[in-house]
Protein backbone atom coordinates (compact mmCIF):
# COMPACT_ATOMS: atom_id res chain seq x y z
CA UNK A 1 0.00 0.00 0.00
CA UNK A 2 1.20 3.48 -0.81
CA UNK A 3 2.02 5.22 2.48
CA UNK A 4 -0.13 8.17 1.53
CA UNK A 5 -3.27 6.05 1.09
CA UNK A 6 -5.77 6.46 3.88
CA UNK A 7 -7.18 2.99 3.46
CA UNK A 8 -5.81 -0.44 2.55
CA UNK A 9 -8.62 -0.98 0.07
CA UNK A 10 -11.08 1.09 -1.85
CA UNK A 11 -14.12 1.75 0.29
CA UNK A 12 -17.65 1.92 -1.04
CA UNK A 13 -20.46 1.45 1.43
CA UNK A 14 -24.06 2.48 1.24
CA UNK A 15 -27.11 2.28 3.45
CA UNK A 16 -30.72 3.34 3.31
CA UNK A 17 -32.48 5.29 6.05
CA UNK A 18 -36.09 6.25 6.56
CA UNK A 19 -36.47 9.98 5.93
CA UNK A 20 -37.15 11.33 9.40
CA UNK A 21 -35.25 13.05 12.17
CA UNK A 22 -35.08 9.87 14.24
CA UNK A 23 -32.84 8.36 11.54
CA UNK A 24 -30.12 10.96 12.00
CA UNK A 25 -28.60 9.01 14.86
CA UNK A 26 -28.35 5.94 12.60
CA UNK A 27 -26.82 8.09 9.87
CA UNK A 28 -24.10 9.16 12.30
CA UNK A 29 -23.51 5.58 13.46
CA UNK A 30 -23.16 4.36 9.87
CA UNK A 31 -20.75 7.20 9.03
CA UNK A 32 -18.63 6.56 12.13
CA UNK A 33 -18.52 2.85 11.27
CA UNK A 34 -17.19 3.59 7.78
CA UNK A 35 -14.67 6.18 8.96
CA UNK A 36 -13.25 3.68 11.45
CA UNK A 37 -11.80 1.95 8.36
CA UNK A 38 -10.02 5.07 7.16
CA UNK A 39 -6.74 6.36 8.57
CA UNK A 40 -7.60 9.97 9.33
CA UNK A 41 -7.51 11.79 12.62
CA UNK A 42 -10.48 11.83 14.95
CA UNK A 43 -11.15 15.55 14.48
CA UNK A 44 -11.56 15.09 10.74
CA UNK A 45 -13.77 12.04 11.28
CA UNK A 46 -15.99 14.13 13.58
CA UNK A 47 -16.21 16.92 11.00
CA UNK A 48 -17.12 14.49 8.23
CA UNK A 49 -19.81 12.89 10.40
CA UNK A 50 -21.22 16.38 11.05
CA UNK A 51 -21.24 17.22 7.32
CA UNK A 52 -23.03 13.97 6.49
CA UNK A 53 -25.58 14.41 9.28
CA UNK A 54 -26.25 18.01 8.20
CA UNK A 55 -26.82 16.94 4.60
CA UNK A 56 -29.19 14.18 5.75
CA UNK A 57 -30.94 16.70 7.98
CA UNK A 58 -31.41 19.00 4.97
CA UNK A 59 -33.16 16.18 3.13
CA UNK A 60 -35.52 15.67 6.07
CA UNK A 61 -36.11 19.41 6.59
CA UNK A 62 -36.13 20.76 3.05
CA UNK A 63 -36.51 18.08 0.36
CA UNK A 64 -39.35 16.54 2.38
CA UNK A 65 -40.84 19.78 3.69
CA UNK A 66 -44.64 19.41 3.80
CA UNK A 67 -44.40 15.88 2.43
CA UNK A 68 -45.84 12.92 4.28
CA UNK A 69 -42.97 10.48 3.75
CA UNK A 70 -44.83 7.20 4.17
CA UNK A 71 -41.51 5.72 5.19
CA UNK A 72 -39.69 6.92 2.08
CA UNK A 73 -36.01 6.14 2.24
CA UNK A 74 -32.89 8.09 1.45
CA UNK A 75 -29.60 6.42 0.57
CA UNK A 76 -26.15 7.48 1.64
CA UNK A 77 -23.08 6.13 -0.11
CA UNK A 78 -19.56 6.74 1.20
CA UNK A 79 -16.72 5.98 -1.22
CA UNK A 80 -12.98 6.39 -0.95
CA UNK A 81 -10.96 5.86 -4.11
CA UNK A 82 -7.29 4.94 -4.40
CA UNK A 83 -6.48 8.62 -4.87
CA UNK A 84 -7.87 9.28 -1.37
CA UNK A 85 -10.75 11.33 -2.68
CA UNK A 86 -13.73 10.87 -0.41
CA UNK A 87 -17.09 11.04 -2.13
CA UNK A 88 -20.34 10.99 -0.22
CA UNK A 89 -23.53 10.60 -2.22
CA UNK A 90 -27.05 11.34 -0.94
CA UNK A 91 -30.05 10.10 -2.87
CA UNK A 92 -33.63 11.01 -2.06
CA UNK A 93 -37.10 11.06 -3.58
CA UNK A 94 -38.24 14.38 -2.13
CA UNK A 95 -38.98 17.64 -3.91
CA UNK A 96 -36.42 18.51 -6.60
CA UNK A 97 -33.70 20.72 -5.18
CA UNK A 98 -32.32 23.60 -7.24
CA UNK A 99 -28.68 23.62 -6.17
CA UNK A 100 -28.26 27.20 -7.34
CA UNK A 101 -30.78 28.29 -4.72
CA UNK A 102 -29.14 26.46 -1.82
CA UNK A 103 -27.40 29.12 0.23
CA UNK A 104 -26.36 29.36 3.84
CA UNK A 105 -27.36 32.50 5.71
CA UNK A 106 -24.95 35.37 6.16
CA UNK A 107 -22.83 34.08 9.04
CA UNK A 108 -22.59 37.56 10.60
CA UNK A 109 -26.36 37.84 10.78
CA UNK A 110 -26.69 35.82 13.98
CA UNK A 111 -30.02 34.05 14.18
CA UNK A 112 -31.23 30.49 14.61
CA UNK A 113 -31.16 28.31 11.49
CA UNK A 114 -29.28 28.30 8.21
CA UNK A 115 -26.04 26.91 9.58
CA UNK A 116 -26.16 23.33 8.28
CA UNK A 117 -25.22 24.25 4.73
CA UNK A 118 -22.50 26.56 6.05
CA UNK A 119 -21.00 23.70 8.06
CA UNK A 120 -21.08 21.39 5.03
CA UNK A 121 -19.30 23.97 2.90
CA UNK A 122 -16.72 24.63 5.61
CA UNK A 123 -15.90 20.95 5.94
CA UNK A 124 -16.08 19.64 2.39
CA UNK A 125 -14.11 20.66 -0.74
CA UNK A 126 -17.09 20.56 -3.08
CA UNK A 127 -20.87 20.31 -2.92
CA UNK A 128 -22.68 19.36 -6.14
CA UNK A 129 -26.39 18.83 -6.75
CA UNK A 130 -27.44 16.55 -9.58
CA UNK A 131 -30.72 15.27 -10.80
CA UNK A 132 -31.09 11.76 -9.42
CA UNK A 133 -31.29 8.76 -11.69
CA UNK A 134 -34.53 6.81 -11.30
CA UNK A 135 -35.91 6.06 -8.77
CA UNK A 136 -34.14 8.98 -7.10
CA UNK A 137 -35.12 12.63 -7.53
CA UNK A 138 -32.10 14.33 -5.97
CA UNK A 139 -28.46 13.32 -5.88
CA UNK A 140 -26.16 15.42 -3.72
CA UNK A 141 -22.43 14.77 -3.92
CA UNK A 142 -19.99 15.95 -1.27
CA UNK A 143 -16.29 15.47 -1.95
CA UNK A 144 -13.10 15.98 -0.02
CA UNK A 145 -9.51 15.13 -0.76
CA UNK A 146 -8.18 13.35 2.34
Amino acid sequence: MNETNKSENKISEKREFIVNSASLKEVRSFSREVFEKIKIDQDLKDELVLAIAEAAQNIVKHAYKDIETNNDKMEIKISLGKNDELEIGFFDKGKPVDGAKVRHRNIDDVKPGGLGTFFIQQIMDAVVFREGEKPWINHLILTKQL
Partner: protein
Amino acid sequence: MTYKVSEEGNISTVFLNGEIDMDVVDKAKELIMPLIEAKKEVHINLKDVQYMDSSGISVLIESHQKALEVGTKVILKEISKSVLKVIMMAKLEQILNLD
Protein backbone atom coordinates in the same frame (compact mmCIF):
# COMPACT_ATOMS: atom_id res chain seq x y z
CA MET B 1 -30.47 13.26 25.11
CA THR B 2 -31.06 13.23 28.82
CA TYR B 3 -30.95 16.16 31.22
CA LYS B 4 -30.96 17.30 34.80
CA VAL B 5 -31.85 20.72 36.17
CA SER B 6 -30.62 22.18 39.42
CA GLU B 7 -31.74 25.45 41.01
CA GLU B 8 -29.78 27.78 43.22
CA GLY B 9 -31.33 31.17 43.91
CA ASN B 10 -32.10 32.77 40.57
CA ILE B 11 -29.73 30.46 38.68
CA SER B 12 -31.02 27.37 36.92
CA THR B 13 -28.36 25.00 35.70
CA VAL B 14 -29.34 22.64 32.91
CA PHE B 15 -27.05 19.64 32.54
CA LEU B 16 -27.46 18.18 29.07
CA ASN B 17 -26.18 14.72 28.25
CA GLY B 18 -25.77 12.83 24.98
CA GLU B 19 -26.13 13.92 21.38
CA ILE B 20 -28.14 17.00 20.43
CA ASP B 21 -29.59 16.94 16.97
CA MET B 22 -32.77 17.89 15.11
CA ASP B 23 -34.59 14.97 16.70
CA VAL B 24 -34.20 16.27 20.26
CA VAL B 25 -34.01 20.07 19.90
CA ASP B 26 -37.68 20.58 20.65
CA LYS B 27 -37.18 18.77 23.93
CA ALA B 28 -34.17 20.98 24.73
CA LYS B 29 -36.11 24.15 23.87
CA GLU B 30 -39.10 23.09 25.97
CA LEU B 31 -36.69 22.64 28.85
CA ILE B 32 -34.65 25.84 28.51
CA MET B 33 -37.08 28.47 27.20
CA PRO B 34 -39.50 28.51 30.19
CA LEU B 35 -36.54 29.07 32.53
CA ILE B 36 -35.47 32.08 30.49
CA GLU B 37 -39.02 33.37 30.26
CA ALA B 38 -39.16 33.13 34.07
CA LYS B 39 -36.12 35.48 33.98
CA LYS B 40 -33.79 32.94 35.53
CA GLU B 41 -30.10 33.16 34.76
CA VAL B 42 -29.63 29.91 32.89
CA HIS B 43 -26.38 27.97 32.91
CA ILE B 44 -26.23 25.24 30.30
CA ASN B 45 -23.64 22.63 31.22
CA LEU B 46 -22.33 20.93 28.08
CA LYS B 47 -19.67 18.71 29.63
CA ASP B 48 -21.48 15.52 28.68
CA VAL B 49 -22.68 16.53 25.23
CA GLN B 50 -20.61 14.50 22.78
CA TYR B 51 -22.23 15.80 19.61
CA MET B 52 -24.16 18.89 18.59
CA ASP B 53 -25.30 19.82 15.11
CA SER B 54 -26.66 23.04 13.61
CA SER B 55 -30.06 22.42 15.23
CA GLY B 56 -28.46 22.37 18.67
CA ILE B 57 -26.49 25.51 17.85
CA SER B 58 -29.77 27.17 16.85
CA VAL B 59 -31.18 26.42 20.31
CA LEU B 60 -28.14 28.06 21.90
CA ILE B 61 -28.59 31.17 19.70
CA GLU B 62 -32.33 31.32 20.35
CA SER B 63 -31.79 30.93 24.10
CA HIS B 64 -29.14 33.65 24.13
CA GLN B 65 -31.32 36.05 22.16
CA LYS B 66 -34.40 35.34 24.25
CA ALA B 67 -32.39 35.97 27.42
CA LEU B 68 -31.22 39.35 26.12
CA GLU B 69 -34.81 40.17 25.24
CA VAL B 70 -36.12 39.48 28.75
CA GLY B 71 -33.13 40.94 30.53
CA THR B 72 -31.34 37.86 31.80
CA LYS B 73 -28.49 35.73 30.47
CA VAL B 74 -27.55 32.26 29.36
CA ILE B 75 -24.04 31.06 30.15
CA LEU B 76 -22.55 27.95 28.56
CA LYS B 77 -20.52 25.98 31.10
CA GLU B 78 -17.87 23.24 30.79
CA ILE B 79 -18.28 23.06 27.04
CA SER B 80 -17.05 19.75 25.64
CA LYS B 81 -14.34 19.85 22.99
CA SER B 82 -16.65 18.66 20.24
CA VAL B 83 -19.34 21.25 21.02
CA LEU B 84 -16.78 24.05 21.29
CA LYS B 85 -15.49 23.14 17.86
CA VAL B 86 -18.97 23.51 16.36
CA ILE B 87 -19.55 26.81 18.20
CA MET B 88 -16.29 28.08 16.74
CA MET B 89 -17.13 26.80 13.28
CA ALA B 90 -20.31 28.88 13.51
CA LYS B 91 -18.17 31.85 14.63
CA LEU B 92 -20.23 32.26 17.79
CA GLU B 93 -17.48 32.23 20.41
CA GLN B 94 -17.65 36.03 20.69
CA ILE B 95 -21.45 36.12 20.62
CA LEU B 96 -22.55 33.48 23.14
CA ASN B 97 -21.50 33.63 26.79
CA LEU B 98 -18.89 30.90 27.17
CA ASP B 99 -17.44 30.02 30.55
